[in-house]
């Protein structure tokens, strides 16, 4: 058991390390050195000679000396990551960590709300359509699920944006809160935050609710065949109790494993959804960085996304056997 956890942790570190290395070597191989690009920008803006600008670029914006051999720079880069130094953004002229501190809370807020909302609605729908086979709800949910499955996230986001924000003007077109308000914990500000987050959250929920419903339906359908459910029905227990305490509790376990994977998919999709709604989260800045070739920001935000996903997977991996005794037994046997 303990060995399994240690193995997962080592594995998680390895994945993070590998992704960081991929981005390092990618950016190292960019045609035209990064330093030269930044230096050219700096030289133009500050009106200094190119050589001088290059010195500044080296010390401030790159964080490593390009005249050193590749291996040494690589080690330096990894050491910097370990100490929390994620480099500097060349466009915003601030450390990447500063951008992350500003953007991450919005992304976390929207993603967690959307994930839990779609999970709750989907699981409930799935349970109902598995239990009541003969109603019209089943085919409707199935058709909805395969239709939203065919809609990529940018399609959902664009349609919601065009219809609800641009045409009907029901929701704001950009930002995380109204600019006239100063951030703080008072009702107006909280309402404004919720109002601005509604569309991004709605986009994720519309996109993912069918997935959860079908998954739960499949899981519940197989649990319904079990003898203990038939026994509960035979004992004349109320329907509600059978569904929640007998079927739901067992059927939800394999569905819940997907939470981490789905969070990963949503975090990946946040690049597009936050860009469409002009919502200043991690994904918005990541897309901005790739569009404007801000390598420092790109590298730093990608690192954050990777760490987020790997940690989410790790947590599920470690927690899951604790909640599902069947897996615990299997894991012990292995």
């Amino acid at each position, binding site marked *: 058991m303990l060995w399994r956890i240690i193995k997962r942790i080592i594995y998680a570190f390895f994945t993070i390390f590998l*992704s960081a290395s991929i*981005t390092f070597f990618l*950016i190292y191989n960019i045609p035209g050195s990064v330093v030269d690009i930044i230096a050219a920008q700096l030289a133009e803006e500050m009106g200094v000679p190119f050589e001088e600008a290059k010195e500044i670029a080296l010390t401030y914006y790159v964080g490593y000396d390009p005249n050193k051999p590749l291996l040494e720079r690589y080690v330096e880069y990894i050491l910097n990551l370990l100490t929390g130094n994620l480099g500097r953004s060349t466009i915003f002229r601030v450390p990447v960590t500063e951008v992350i501190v500003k953007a991450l809370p919005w992304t976390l807020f929207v993603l967690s709300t959307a994930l839990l909302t779609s999970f709750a609605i989907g699981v409930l729908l799935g349970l109902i359509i598995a239990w009541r086979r003969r109603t019209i709800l089943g085919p409707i949910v199935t058709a909805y699920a395969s239709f939203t499955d065919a809609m*990529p996230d940018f399609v959902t986001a664009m349609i919601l944006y065009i219809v609800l924000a641009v045409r009907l003007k029901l929701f704001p077109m950009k930002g995380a809160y109204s600019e006239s308000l100063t951030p703080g914990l008072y009702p107006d500000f909280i309402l404004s935050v919720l109002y601005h987050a509604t569309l991004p959250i709605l986009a994720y929920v519309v996109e993912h609710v069918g997935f959860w419903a079908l998954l739960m339906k499949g899981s519940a359908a197989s649990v319904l065949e079990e003898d203990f459910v038939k026994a509960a029905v035979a004992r004349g227990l109320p329907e509600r109790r059978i569904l929640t305490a007998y079927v739901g509790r067992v059927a939800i376990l394999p569905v819940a494993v997907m939470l981490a994977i789905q969070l990963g998919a949503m975090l990946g999709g946040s690049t597009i959804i936050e860009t469409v709604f002009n919502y200043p989260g991690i994904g918005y800045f990541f897309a901005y960085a*790739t569009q404007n070739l801000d390598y420092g920001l790109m590298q730093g935000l990608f690192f954050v996304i990777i760490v987020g996903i790997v940690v989410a997977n790790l947590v599920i991996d470690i927690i899951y056997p604790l909640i599902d005794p069947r897996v615990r037994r299997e894991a012990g046997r292995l």
Partner: protein
Amino acid sequence: MNIKKRLVNIYYSFLRPIFKNRRAFTGFVILLGFFLMATVGPLVVPLSLRTDWSKRYLPPSLEHPLGTDYCGRDIFQQIVHGSRSVLLIAVLSALFAIVLAITVGITAGLLGGIVDVILSSIIDVFLTIPSFPVMLIIAATLKVKDPFSFSAIISMWMWAGLARSIRAEVVSIRNKEFIEAAKLLDLGTFHIVFREIMPLVMPYIAINFITMMRAAITASVGIMFLGVVPFDITHWGVMLNLAMFQYGAVYVPEGLHYALAPLACIVLLEYGAVCLSHGLEEIFNPRLKTYE
């Protein structure tokens, strides 16, 4: 010599089930339509990218079936010519990914031991790294300019799931009698891989080819939508990018159809792929039907 027999065989084992399954047939027809659009379409429909501001945002008419864009160019022509690069990227990415998945999956499953351990961990790592951000970062830094390298980048992040299921399948049949028999008869690895194992994993591959095509469409259009690799002006993703971010067509009522045309095509194309892949699953795995 056996070509006719083989064609008949393909008809009975592959095409006839598709025609009989309503879902698969719907998907098949939609995909066939788009393939015709991509292959024959550009030969029939001319493409004129001349700017004519007097024809800005014309509504759909006989002359312009889908109306005109922000500088008076016909949208239908762009959709038809764009379908070529959308489908080319989809097919190439799926093809690359399938070849990679088969190679890694069968190697890991057949050889076992340390090779299996290493390949399986590589598969796990590729499955953990979020595909869209990594595709975006690679496409942006390498400044991709052609559909081939773009497809290669996309396929790099799609093969792992299929490789894992092929590996599992190979492991489960590795010690079956017919493989043992082939080994004893000294038929060679080539024979075992292509004559004994491949036919068994073929259904997986057919279904995954369609789902991967769909994933590649989502990914390539998404990346182009963000304006990162705009190498083809008529690609639907680039059209969406222009409509959404560059010329603000979505903000004026008369420009709405410019964004809706590529959106509708993407949804229809992906819906076709979803139908066909679900239909194929029902055909190859009839147990699924009972749950519907």
